[in-house]
């Protein structure tokens, strides 16, 4: 999103009435302050969506402020373990690590200025800030961006102690819902159609980026964009590609980067490079954060976009690809089935062979791929653009203490 982007710029994308309704909702929150807190200002989907949402809230007249918690590398190593455990990838967590988490939270409780009527806390890293509630009261919402459908029991029990103290929790997919004593809302995350990552690029720009990474413009391009994380199954992607490559001339691009709260990614990147070996049709691109135009160009040039995750929070990269009208082949995990309705807005798979089969179907029938891409784009326009997420949060702030099924404002 450019610094000058304002809510009105979304009118051509979603229609004027949509924007009018946002203004009507925002007007009813006039005078309230929302403090949003997460773990980082840059790197990863949460920071990205907040960097777009916060200015839009403010432009609508809702006073939203953004702060992050601080912590050293050992703290983020623990929270990464939490992250993996919540995804069901059990790793033993010691009492000392839980103690470190509490200790870092305590430091943040002393450092953060909690001024705000609504405290909007994102993901597990700052979840324990709810301890401040006994001192200051206010309304608290916990926004969980990750897949907690099969959480490790030990970690979830630990976190639930804090989650239960919130007024409400927000999950990205219905199957992340838990048995909680508090209200749970469903709000999938979103992409910004006007951002550098999603705006329409001139063909020359796409050519420049492809040349920069040594990619062949004329060869069908299969792309997966994701951090180098085992849960994104980059090795599985390479295996599926190798199956397809036997019958189709094509190239694979695994484009990713690292986030400051993900110490594992360097290690995974090396594993992926070793697995790709000397195959000249496999391109491993370590793209630093902020290379949005490059990512956009790769997605625009792609023939098929993949997301073969083993666990997934939401996978915004799918909405990004669908928004560019690309056919998507993805695993039926986490929030992916919300974006990819099998055989309507993309193809879902459950295995390496299933993924290879879906890739072949599209490579052999480009028109089918285009039809899936067109439907996918419309699906994203209706449900996964930033203005929808903005609207969900406005509604949530307004409905937090209303128990009726039909609320008249």
């Amino acid at each position, binding site marked *: 999103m450019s610094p000058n982007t304002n809510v009105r710029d979304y009118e051509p994308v979603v*229609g*004027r*009435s*949509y924007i*009018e*309704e946002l203004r*009507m*909702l925002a007007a*009813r929150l006039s005078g309230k302050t929302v403090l949003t807190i997460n773990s980082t200002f840059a790197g990863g989907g949460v920071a990205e969506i907040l960097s777009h949402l916060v200015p839009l809230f403010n432009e609508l007249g809702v006073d939203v402020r953004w702060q992050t918690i601080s912590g050293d590398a050992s703290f983020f190593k623990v929270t990464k373990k939490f992250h993996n455990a919540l995804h069901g990838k059990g790793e033993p967590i010691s009492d000392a690590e839980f103690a470190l988490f509490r200790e870092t939270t305590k430091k943040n409780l002393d450092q953060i200025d909690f001024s705000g009527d609504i405290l909007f806390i994102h993901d597990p890293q700052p979840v324990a800030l709810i301890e401040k509630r006994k001192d200051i009261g206010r309304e608290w919402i916990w926004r969980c961006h990750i897949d907690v*459908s099969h959480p490790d029991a030990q970690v979830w029990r630990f976190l639930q102690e804090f989650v239960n103290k919130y007024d409400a929790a927000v*999950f990205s997919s*219905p*199957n992340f*819902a*838990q*048995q*909680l004593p508090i*209200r*749970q*809302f*469903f*709000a999938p995350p979103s992409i910004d159609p006007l951002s550098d990552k999603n705006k329409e690029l001139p063909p020359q720009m796409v050519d420049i980026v492809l040349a920069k990474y040594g990619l062949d413009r004329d060869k069908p391009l299969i792309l997966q964009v994701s951090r180098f994380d085992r849960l994104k199954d980059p090795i599985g992607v390479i295996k599926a590609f190798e199956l397809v490559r036997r019958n189709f001339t094509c190239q694979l691009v695994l484009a990713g980067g690292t986030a400051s709260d993900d110490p594992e990614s360097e290690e995974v990147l090396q594993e992926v490079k070793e697995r790709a070996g000397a195959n000249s049709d496999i391109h491993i691109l370590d793209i630093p954060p902020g290379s949005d135009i490059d990512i956009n160009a790769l997605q625009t040039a792609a023939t098929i976009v993949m997301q073969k995750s083993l666990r997934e929070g939401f996978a915004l990269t799918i909405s990004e690809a669908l928004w560019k009208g690309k056919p998507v082949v993805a695993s*039926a*995990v986490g929030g992916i089935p919300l974006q990819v*309705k099998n055989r*309507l807005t993309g193809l879902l798979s459950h295995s390496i062979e299933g993924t290879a089969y879906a890739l072949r179907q599209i490579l052999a029938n480009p028109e089918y791929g285009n039809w899936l891409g067109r*439907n996918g784009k*419309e*699906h994203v326009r*209706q*449900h996964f653009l930033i203005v929808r997420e903005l*609207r*969900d949060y406005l*509604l*949530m702030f*307004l*409905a937090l203490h209303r128990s*009726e*099924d*039909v*609320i*008249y*404002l």
Partner: protein
Amino acid sequence: MGIGVIAWLRAHWPDIVVPVLVFLGVFLISLWIRRITYNTLERWLKERKTNVGRIIVSATRGPFLHWLLILGAYIALRISVLPAQDKVLGGRILASMFIAYFGWVLARLSRELLVASFPDRTKTPGRVVTVTTNVVQVTIAVVGVLIILELWGAPVAPILIVLVAAIVVAILVFRDVFPSLVSGFQLTQQKQIRTGDLIRLESGEEGRVEEITWRNTQIKTLDGNLIIVPNTRLMQATITNFGKQPKAATEPFQFSTRLHLRELTGLSATNVSQLLSNLKEIPDAVVYYHTHSFIEEFQFLTPEPTNDFASWIQDALHYDALAERLAYIDTFEFSTIAALRQRIVAVIQDFVAEAPVEREAPPDNEFHFIKSISVVLPTPYIAHDLQEFISILRKVSIGSLYFHIFEARLRLQRRTNDFSVWFEDCLGETELAEQITRLDPYNYTMDNLREIIIQACEKRL
């Protein structure tokens, strides 16, 4: 002294009588000419039915008599034996009187003609008429004064120079105003726009023309805002004019919109028995979500996928026959969620009674019960008649359409919708109301539904 006057009259009576007789003669002849001229003119105007001629006749008939008197006096003066100096003085006085009187009549006439030249005399732009009339009247007055001054030998040239300079300065200062003034004049003269018309601008803004001033046109939009458009821009723009207000409704229609928030219940089902058991207990808002959300979610697809229960039973459990029976349930038949729930439960119960083996959904394919929380808020759009209703319906969100059509049935708990109720109760459009009520909204995409309602309304205009 009396003898002196009588003697003087005896000696000079022809000097007095002749001018008086000439004055009376000229006056009588002129009266006769005036009568013939005006009678002929009136007969001609009667045939032509022209308003302008009538105004001219009515405004000049009375003053014409006075002009004749001045003419008679002037001729009498010229033939009199008065000294040449007095004749010149008298002539100037009479000429000045004539010019002043003529100018006054001309100014009055010009005002009446200008007012009459606007299409709608009761509602046309008062300020345009006033400004134009003032300009014309001042011009006439200035010209009259200049002629009189010239007549009396006063130096007119310097005054003229000052006047011309003042006009040039005025043009420079008000250079933006004149084009607007002219445009305002053209707008009303050409009857392109009139007060009360519903118009759509190139920008998409729609509203009723409130006032056309000498510089701009004020439009009250359908959401209650006032847009002020310079007349020059309006003249250059492409405007859709829907014309005057059709039959006004007894009560206006307030458009509302409905947005929804999804609340997770934490309840799920992995087989039909669990689905059935939860279905009997869950709140109406959950049943509502799973029988209506697909309409909004896939409103761009034709045909739309079916309700969530049928979809899940087909995709996750592969009970095709049960899925078909659930998909066949016509939501349109039910005006309460309780009745709809009862039907769904009955269909599943029948199946469970017959089903030999219970199938389980694969992992991660459970059915999750979601509750819909509707948030309703009024929009700024209010329709006072059918034309405004159509214009607003074109621009309101799908949420608004959804609220007035789908949710209305459940809110009103009868087989109708908000639009039909308004058509019938406030516009007396019974036939249109019935037509919209008969529509099964569940069979159309939202955009198609919108277009069908608009077309039905347009036929009534």
